């Protein structure tokens, strides 16, 4: 599966003019005296898989949190789908089509897989609380429609067998998959994945990689992911941005980045 094929869903001819979906300009984020992110700029094109990598404490998760509005940067601005903001809010981000998963799985542990994924549809449900209490007529109709969409996602991610299982009882690899399912239930345009493969064995990683590629391919979803496994990053991503100590040290295709001396130094350490 080559990237040129993947981007073919976009309106523009991908080879000539990639369409920028998200643009981060000169963002600086600090907590007190600690600079988590220093003057970082990069963009994410529509339809691509963009990896954010870097050693521990490089500011990767902070960057995701800035993008979906959980943190507000002191300096800099973010343009999403042509709209520029200095301050994003998580719920606005969600309503505009940004979904995410978390480094440490953040699901409702007592709820079933199905209910967890249904919760991803919340923003798309329009009938009010009282209608939903009745579970009748239009509210039921709405529920059925959403359930259909959720079932498609369950089928897509091959988790039919755990539909009714409380997620707290599931192994870690499956919980990660349920989290991805919930994010997909939002039908996002931009999907932020925070270490989707952390703590997985090789087989689970391969499965997850395939799902990420399929999501990108099938739904045309733009994906930004943080990942530590270099093999995964090199295989999956269209472009890679490298952060180290909050600063951007490289940006380009996987091949360019992996041959960059600064990147090698950051990962392997430099003799002083």
């Amino acid at each position, binding site marked *: 599966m080559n990237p040129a*094929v993947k981007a*073919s869903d976009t309106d523009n001819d991908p080879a000539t003019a990639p369409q920028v979906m998200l643009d981060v300009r000169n963002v600086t984020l600090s907590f007190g005296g600690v600079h988590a992110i220093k003057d970082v700029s990069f963009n994410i094109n529509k339809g691509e898989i963009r990896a954010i990598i870097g050693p521990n404490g490089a500011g990767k998760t902070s960057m995701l949190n800035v993008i979906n509005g959980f943190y507000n940067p002191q300096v800099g601005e973010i343009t999403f789908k042509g709209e520029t903001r200095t301050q994003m809010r998580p719920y606005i981000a969600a309503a505009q089509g940004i979904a995410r998963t978390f480094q440490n799985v953040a699901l409702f542990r007592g709820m079933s897989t199905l209910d967890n994924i249904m919760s991803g549809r919340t923003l798309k449900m329009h009938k009010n609380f009282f209608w939903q209490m009745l579970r009748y007529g239009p509210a039921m109709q709405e529920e059925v429609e959403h359930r*259909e969409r959720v*079932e498609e996602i*369950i089928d*897509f991610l091959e988790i*039919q*067998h755990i539909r009714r299982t409380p997620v707290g009882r599931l192994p870690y690899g499956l919980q990660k998959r349920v989290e991805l399912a919930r994010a997909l239930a939002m039908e996002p345009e931009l999907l932020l994945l925070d270490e989707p493969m952390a703590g997985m064995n090789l087989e689970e990683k391969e499965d997850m990689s395939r799902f990420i590629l*399929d999501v990108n391919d099938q739904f045309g979803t733009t994906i930004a992911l943080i990942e530590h496994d270099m093999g995964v990053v090199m295989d999956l991503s269209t472009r890679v941005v490298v952060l180290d100590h909050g600063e951007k040290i490289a940006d380009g295709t996987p091949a360019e980045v992996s041959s960059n001396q600064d990147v090698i130094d950051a990962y392997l350490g430099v003799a002083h």
Partner: protein
Amino acid sequence: MTAEAQDASVHDTIPKLLLRNAQIRGARPAMREKDLGIWQTWTWADTLQEVRDLAMGLRALGLKRGDRIAIVGDNRPRLYWAICSAQSLGAIPVPVYQDSVAEEMGYVLDHAGVQFAVVENQEQVDKLLEIRETYKDLKEIVFDEPRGLQNYDVEGVRSYEAVQELGRETSAHDQLWRDEIARGKSSDTAIILYTSGTTGRPKGVVLTQGACIWAAETAAEFDNLTEAEEVIAYLPMAWVGDHVFSYAQSYASGYCVNCPESPETIVQDRREVGTTYAFAPPRIYENLITQTMVAMEDASVPKKRMFEYFLAVARDYGEDILDGKPVPFVARLKYWLGNLMVYGPLKNRYGLSKVRIGYTAGEAIGPEIFKYYRALGMNLKQLYGQTEAAVYITGQPDGEIYADTVGIPMGGVEIKVADNGEVMYRSPGIFTEYYKNEDATRDTRTPDGWVHSGDAGFIDENGHLKIIDRAKDVGKLNDGTLFPPKYIENKLKFFPNIKEAVAFGDGRDTVTAFINIDLTSVGSWAERNNIVYASYQELAGHADVYKMIESHVDEVNRELAQEERVAGAQISRFLILHKELDADDGEITRTAKVRRSLVNERYAVLIDALYDPGKKRQKIKTEVTFEDGRRGDIEGDVEIRDMKLHAIDRASFREAAE
């Protein structure tokens, strides 16, 4: 509908049965599949259209009478239809195990000379494209599930829908298709099934339409199958069992086949469907019990008590009630209560509540497991079959169930036991040949139609067949008594305390055995009995352990003494090995099968001692390989126990025979 097709006597191919079913039970369900959480149903009338459109599409792509077409994937309605589509054109379907790697699959495709393939999904398409790089004859690949394949722009790869569309575009396609079916006859090759084969390359077993239909009709008669049965299809389509149960029998009896949502959801799907007719290898039944027992360990004390109490009731009376034998009224009452509180809910959990007939086949089932299900009131039966026989050789008729036999010959099957103890059979269902392998065909099938099963066995006093071992492993004692090593070893291994056993006796006067104790089981027994030990060797040599194992061996001898053919093969001496037989030392395979020749060589001293009546102990030094690859020696001084043999009552055998 043509005139011939309405005449029952000419339903001699499966596609003709499809025409019949569409006509006489067009509105009844033929197939279901759970998709997006909802069961979708296709009636026989729908099935006819699906099969017809695909068949004509394949024909438009160039599939002709006699061409081979591979079918690869999990059990999906469309793949079953593909089989019927191919057969309706007189082409030969070749189902391939969906999890085989590209190289194995490539061998089968090449050997069968396959030009077309209908496959489930991207995974299989990728595999076939890889194969096509070297095997150029593969022309067309048709896929069912489009996911991930939208952007494949490769010649000769197309979707199922596209092929059906092609079929519908053919003018007068319905009539053309019916004409093709009318040309089919009973002696046509229906299918080639490649046996997975533990040794050497897989062999392609060729079965005719007549054989498949015979198998389906024999089973229907044996168990009174009707169109109301519900079956779940989840075993590999390349396995003869699935081909007959989920395909041929469905077309012959007109019952509905259900495809599960995913391989992981079978138990739940089975429960929703309410299967009435089930077929599974023993390990599936074993897994269900293990899951239950593990769950019961965590259950509250009252539940556990209740479970144990009623299970004991079921063990005592369940089978008799199932077989319609007289049972005391109080026991019947207890069983009824147990059914309400334990057995019913349990069977519901397993998805087996409605099972009218359940079969286990493929390998020997432990008697404990077999009896467990029967005690719960499930009519579980054993079947002895082979790919070469279109499954059916023998089966257990209702009410005549013995845990250690595989039943009586099914309709039209003849059985005989050759001089070397090998079971041979002849039936209308036997295979035509091994595809492109005359030598193997000649070795297995005699000119007058008897097939060597490769299994040794005998017919017991009730006329039931008993399989004891692979024929090539069976030896003889010097006095001519049959010596089936695995049969004796399996009897020993049914005791949880015995992990492994090796029996000797071929070409000797008596039978002797090596025993390995099971460290987990014996260890926990030692703990409960305050026996202190530092190593396997010490525990294995302990006097109390010897006493316990001696009682087990004695029990086995008692059982052997009651069986005419093997009564002379009682174990006269045994010893407990000073070390466990280990795959790292090459003594057993990774799948835990004993390598006899190597054991014979390494432990020659011990074997000699077993056959030296004067020796009561023997010292031995063995080289072992540790887990980290280091080597070392362990020394042992092994005690040899003599057994008192049980008297053989020859008179009673004669009586039984008369």
